[in-house]
């Protein structure tokens, strides 16, 4: 669907579908995982049919997410290569957070913050997958010291990942005109020019 022929295509349908598969899996994993982490969150296990069902489903959803995350990683890894401009952008992230982005260095398809987010979630996903396998009692039984280590790594990486994704989702809400890129793939030219000037020029030749 094209809302305005002048809009710029930011994501293909395949990229959007991949993102949502990963996103939905993440939400299910965060809710069921938090249930095992702190008693305050245990009632979340009811969303999955109780504690036992949450325990059974969580690792399978994890493997499912990891698979689609790898696909997404392969799609986007080149676009997320860090450049010196990104590093400059990151060093001045305070101005951005303060709400004044007019003097920020010119950005390509992704800014330094988005790229840092990308790589941090790749690290978290890798840690979660490996440590998750270690603590998957129903399937594996490695030496107990390894399981204990895995449990700590899994908890730390999961909390980091949830925090990252909260920031990721908030950034999309904060920067108006962004979420539509993940719904139907396009953004306005003005949006692109303001937030990703280099990408705007690349796309429009202006």
């Amino acid at each position: 669907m094209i809302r305005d022929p002048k809009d710029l295509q930011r994501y293909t349908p395949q990229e959007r579908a991949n993102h949502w598969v990963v996103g939905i899996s993440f939400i299910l994993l965060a809710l069921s995982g938090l249930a095992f982490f702190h008693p305050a969150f245990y009632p979340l296990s009811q969303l999955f049919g109780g504690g036992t069902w949450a325990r059974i489903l969580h690792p399978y959803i994890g493997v499912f997410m990891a698979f689609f995350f790898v696909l997404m990683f392969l799609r986007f890894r080149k676009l997320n290569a860090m450049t010196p401009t990104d590093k400059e952008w990151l060093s001045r992230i305070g101005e951005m957070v303060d709400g004044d982005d007019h003097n920020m260095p010119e950005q390509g398809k992704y800014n330094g913050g988005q790229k840092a987010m990308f790589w941090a979630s790749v690290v978290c996903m890798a840690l979660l997958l490996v440590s998750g396998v270690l603590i998957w009692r129903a399937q594996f039984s490695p030496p107990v010291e390894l399981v204990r280590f895995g449990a700590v790594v899994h908890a730390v990486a999961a909390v980091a990942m949830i925090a990252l994704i909260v920031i990721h989702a908030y950034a999309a809400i904060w920067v108006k005109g962004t979420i539509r890129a993940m719904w139907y793939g396009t953004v306005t030219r003005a949006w692109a020019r303001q937030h990703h000037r280099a990408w705007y020029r690349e796309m429009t030749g202006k």
Partner: protein
Amino acid sequence: MALQSLDIKQRSATTTPAPSVRQTTAVAKLIDVSTCIGCKACQAACMEWNDIRDEVGINHGVFDNPVDLTAKSWTVMRFAEVEEKGRLEWLIRKDGCMHCADPGCLKACPAPGAIVQYANGIVDFHEEHCIGCGYCITGCPFNVPRISKEDGKAYKCSLCSDRVAVGQAPACAKACPTGAIQFGSKEDMKDYAARRIGDLKERGFDKAGLYDPAGVGGTHVLYVLHHADRPQLYNGLPADPGISPLVSLWKGAAKPLASLALGAVALGSLFHYVMKGPNEVSKETERDVEKETEQ
């Protein structure tokens, strides 16, 4: 697994006090390794009282039968052949839950009420609340709990909490033909042990002693060992057991800190929006783009 009780000291994954109006005396089971003959009457009594029959296994060339604890075998005799001062010693240890005062299983358990510790010191699994995650195994310093392959629930020795609740001794203690398993208040058991240790010392076991490891706050299953300086001789009984620092970190500091951090990120985002406002495309940029597009 026992009936509802009013003397619960700790309950897994519960942050408010458990019902604890009734206070009971701390109990203990004393296993005197020096008088155990390895007859396995305790194993038979355990399966009989709890009415659980394990699969009939195969002989592994040693007396250990079954070779390990299982979801259906809550206690097993572990036989060790050790040479001491040129003489063979057959060290037989009845293995099973130690009923720690500071239970690693309970600390690790994420399911509210799946593991409880009574005022008398017994650590009990309530399998109907168990979700089968196996965190109790991860938390246990003695490698005791086992997950059943049939129902996915964790099982271990209950110290016959159902018998103890009505003033009876555990089935294993009742069945022991040599008096190697004694049951009573923890104080009485320590006194009894002291007499046994004195006797052993007289007979040349100058390192005889009580196994009541302080690292887990003491246990409610005690051993009299002839070689209390080397508990590892008894099929790897840990010398200084304690809850792993990794488990303490995971189920201690990490829980409130991480929960606060996540709350702060979520609320921080909300208040950022409220205080800084949305990041919208400026009118100026919109005009610039219109001009550029017309060209």
